[in-house]
């Protein structure tokens, strides 16, 4: 219906975009955009309404996305929130991924681009919704001006503006050019819709990004093809802290396709060749001498000894203290003690680490899957020496992130180092799966010692928790450790409301963290420290509940009256998970609750253990209160994914260390849950609509304890170290 209106700006911009990106990328499709890049650069400003929305004459509404898409559905969820306030036709919504250089050039108008800590939606929901509202108000005002009627007399539905009194109608596309000349209202002055009246946000709409994932057409960074591009494979010293001593380039220089062998800083060597397979083949054949250093003596056993010292040490690195737990336990009628442990875990994103970098005299460019485009831009600039304003990082959807692709940017820095040897030539650096498994920033290893005291009535009167293990902050963000304290390692035990608060009230409570670092690099891993702490606390509470002779659910409930949100979620999981109802013979149930990333989670698990000790998880029910809901179907997808990620870790996951290096280097030993092992997962959302919590990470922390507590019921024995595969169950 808008065919009669000819747009003069969009086709030009579109052409500019294709030409421009062909020059940059060797083909417009390579960047994965379907909208004019020029729009974000102001070249298509004719249609830009505020900063988040571009309306095209054909009524397409382009919604800009600042965060990274790694499968978690952020593109769709954010677009729903903007479209809700925009009141556009969802069928006409397109999205445009912003680039960090664009953001920088506009003085970070689009805010934080980092995508971690389950922040993507909850941290930006307010300003992107206001952005949608700004565009709507400008479009309505333009129509009102054209018709000479008060804006208050207009209504809008699905991008069609109506004036009932004069029976006139127009569309967003028709008034967009006039709207753009208006001064945008102050976003802060805008009143947002009541979420209860939402019609686009909060609904289980289909994802916007599925089609290209069904036919091989989505170009991940690892798939990128650029003119003249060369490929590189890399090996870093397998012992962390070790160095590259020497390599014998002559032995591989004549192999097919090989261009050069490059020293990458002090620790690594890369082979550059025409194809990646040639590069990897030559790298495997390259004689390399490492200086492995002292760390080559480190093994699982020495690490375990070191961490165990933290269980009894007098000096600690952060605590929570209420009453006198030690005295209460000492004077209790019944005492319970247990010590637990969890191993290092790698992220194992399906798309291995990779980055493509091209350095020219006045420009540095990078194509990489990253959870933090701005951190990638900063790494590109600092490593290449090219000023920030002359750098750009191009966006690709990630083949998994899970925390691996956030702040560290080691993959960008390594690619830059190699690309420096080839000015003007794009270098695609791809890690083998083995290299990816070796040089991760692992989920930290830890142990926890618990003691509890019950009074004569079997009430918990004192609880002492001592967590000992490696600190993520010490490795990645020492500035966050004021006075040597690191409360992040006690995530989920906190007193403060709102983020990772412990859901129990214990009259005498002492929770302590003793930092025991190793030479292994550590970092955030989906759910971060709520994984270990959720397993520790909820499995110990289970042991205490059993010692008390009370029902596991009732024992927990009795300590939760001051934490109604935690309790409501636990109750929802218990109810939908049929707590207390009969199960088929041989199947047993477990329950757990915990909090992280601003959301409340609980789970039940139905599990059987056969005579050989094989565990089968049949069904899990997960309850989540994440406050508001952007898209319930994508919440369910995140919960299902959390169960898989959590079960792989619980049942099989470990990264053992021998001679200072990782020994589990591929999926033959780093076992993943497969479809046949997938339980039936039911997601129960119990939103209270009074806060915005995370979704991608909160539920993973209840997976391990719910399953372990069900195994406890099945075998009568607690499982005090993970993974389950190493524990003799029967």
């Amino acid at each position: 219906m808008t065919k009669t209106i000819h747009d003069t700006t969009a086709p030009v911009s579109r052409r500019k975009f294709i030409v421009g990106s062909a020059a940059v990328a060797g083909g417009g499709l390579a960047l994965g955009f379907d909208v004019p890049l020029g729009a974000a650069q102001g070249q298509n400003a004719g249609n830009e309404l505020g900063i988040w929305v571009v309306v095209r004459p054909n009524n397409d509404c382009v919604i800009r996305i600042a965060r990274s898409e790694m499968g978690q559905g952020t593109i769709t969820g954010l677009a729903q929130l903007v479209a809700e306030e925009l009141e556009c036709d969802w069928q006409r919504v397109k999205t445009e991924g912003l680039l960090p250089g664009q953001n920088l050039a506009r003085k970070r108008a689009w805010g934080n681009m980092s995508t971690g800590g389950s922040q993507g939606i909850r941290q930006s929901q307010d300003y992107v919704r206001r952005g949608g509202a700004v565009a709507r108000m400008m479009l309505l005002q333009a129509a009102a001006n054209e018709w000479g009627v008060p804006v208050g007399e207009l209504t809008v539905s699905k991008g069609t503006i109506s004036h009932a009194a004069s029976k006139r109608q127009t569309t967003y596309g028709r008034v967009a050019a006039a709207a753009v000349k208006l001064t945008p209202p102050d976003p802060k002055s805008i009143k947002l819709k009541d979420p209860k009246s939402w019609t686009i946000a909060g609904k289980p709409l289909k994802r916007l990004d599925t089609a290209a994932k069904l036919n091989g057409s989505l170009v991940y960074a690892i798939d990128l093809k650029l003119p003249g591009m060369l490929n590189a494979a890399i090996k870093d010293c397998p012992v962390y802290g070790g160095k590259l001593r020497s390599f014998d380039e002559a032995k591989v220089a004549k192999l097919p396709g090989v261009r050069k062998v490059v020293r990458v800083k002090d620790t690594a060597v890369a082979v550059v060749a025409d194809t990646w397979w040639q590069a990897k083949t030559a790298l495997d054949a390259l004689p390399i001498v490492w200086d492995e250093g002292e760390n080559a003596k480190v093994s699982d056993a020495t690490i375990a000894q070191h961490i165990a010292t933290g269980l009894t040490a007098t000096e600690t690195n952060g605590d929570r203290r209420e009453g006198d737990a030690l005295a209460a336990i000492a004077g209790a009628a019944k005492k319970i003690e247990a010590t637990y442990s969890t191993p290092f875990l790698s992220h194992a994103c399906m798309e291995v680490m990779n980055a493509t970098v091209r350095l020219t005299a006045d420009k540095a460019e990078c194509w990489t899957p990253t959870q933090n485009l701005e951190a990638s831009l900063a790494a590109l600039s600092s490593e290449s020496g090219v000023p920030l304003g002359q750098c750009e990082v191009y966006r690709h959807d990630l083949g998994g992130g899970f925390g691996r692709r956030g702040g560290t940017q080691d993959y960008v820095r390594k690619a830059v180092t190699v690309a420096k040897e080839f000015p003007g030539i794009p270098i695609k650096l791809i890690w083998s799966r083995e290299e990816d498994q070796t040089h991760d920033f692992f989920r930290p290893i830890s142990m926890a010692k618990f003691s509890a005291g019950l009074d004569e009535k079997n009430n918990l009167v004192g609880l002492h928790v001592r967590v000992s293990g490696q600190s993520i902050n010490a490795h990645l963000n020492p500035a966050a450790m004021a006075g040597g304290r690191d409360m992040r390692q006690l995530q989920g035990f906190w007193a403060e409301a709102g983020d990772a608060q412990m859901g129990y009230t214990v009259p005498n409570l002492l929770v302590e963290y003793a930092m025991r670092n190793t030479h292994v690099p550590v970092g955030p891993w989906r759910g971060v420290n709520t994984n270990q702490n959720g397993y520790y606390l909820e499995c110990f509470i289970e042991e205490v509940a059993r010692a008390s002779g009370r029902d596991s659910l009732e024992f927990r409930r009795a300590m939760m009256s001051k934490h109604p949100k935690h309790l409501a979620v636990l109750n929802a999981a218990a109810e939908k998970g049929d707590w207390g109802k009969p199960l088929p013979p041989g199947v047993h149930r477990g329950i757990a609750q915990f909090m992280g990333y601003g959301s409340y989670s609980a789970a039940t698990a139905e599990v059987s253990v056969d005579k050989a000790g094989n565990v089968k998880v049949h069904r899990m029910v997960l309850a989540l209160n994440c406050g508001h809901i952007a898209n319930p179907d994508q919440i369910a997808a995140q919960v299902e994914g959390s169960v898989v990620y959590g079960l792989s870790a619980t049942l099989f996951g470990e990264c053992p260390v021998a001679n200072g290096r990782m020994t589990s280097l591929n999926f033959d030993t780093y076992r993943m849950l497969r479809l046949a092992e997938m339980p039936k997962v039911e997601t129960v959302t119990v939103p209270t609509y009074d806060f915005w919590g995370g979704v991608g990470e909160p539920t993973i922390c209840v997976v391990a304890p719910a399953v372990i507590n069900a195994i406890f019921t099945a075998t009568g024995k607690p499982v005090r170290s993970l993974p389950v595969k190493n524990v003799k169950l029967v």
Partner: protein
Amino acid sequence: MARLNINGQNRDVQVAADTPLLWVIREQVGLTGTKYGCGVAQCGSCSVHINGELVRSCSMRVGDVRPTDKIVTIEGLSRNSSHPVQRAWAAIDVPQCGYCQSGQIMAAAALLRKKPRPTDADIDEAMTNICRCGTYQRIRAAVHMAAGNGNGGSVGRGNRKS
């Protein structure tokens, strides 16, 4: 030098005979829908069809492929994503990051060719590819849907009507 028949076209490639078919498909032929995940026949990201059989292409030498062998990659599975497996995948919104999904779809298509009405046990046995995002529940439902076994029961909690 090898001659390959991929998605109905003959392609001559200059490559060492021991190069894995996966990397020939990706780097010489230039079809990147087939993915590298492990290189050791564990994950199935690299799955293609050869003469209708499911093959993990990372673990097949290109020298062992005959010029007459008919290789089909995700790009050649159907026109316009019209294969019943692709349509079911879309209807159920299976993919998260999507990286494993080419392999999952090729595995499901191979299963349905052999067993048009697979049981859950058949799906368990055939669908052994790794998905790190954890889309297995939806994969199962989508295989049933593609087979015409109804919608495969309840998955997630969303409204799946497209």
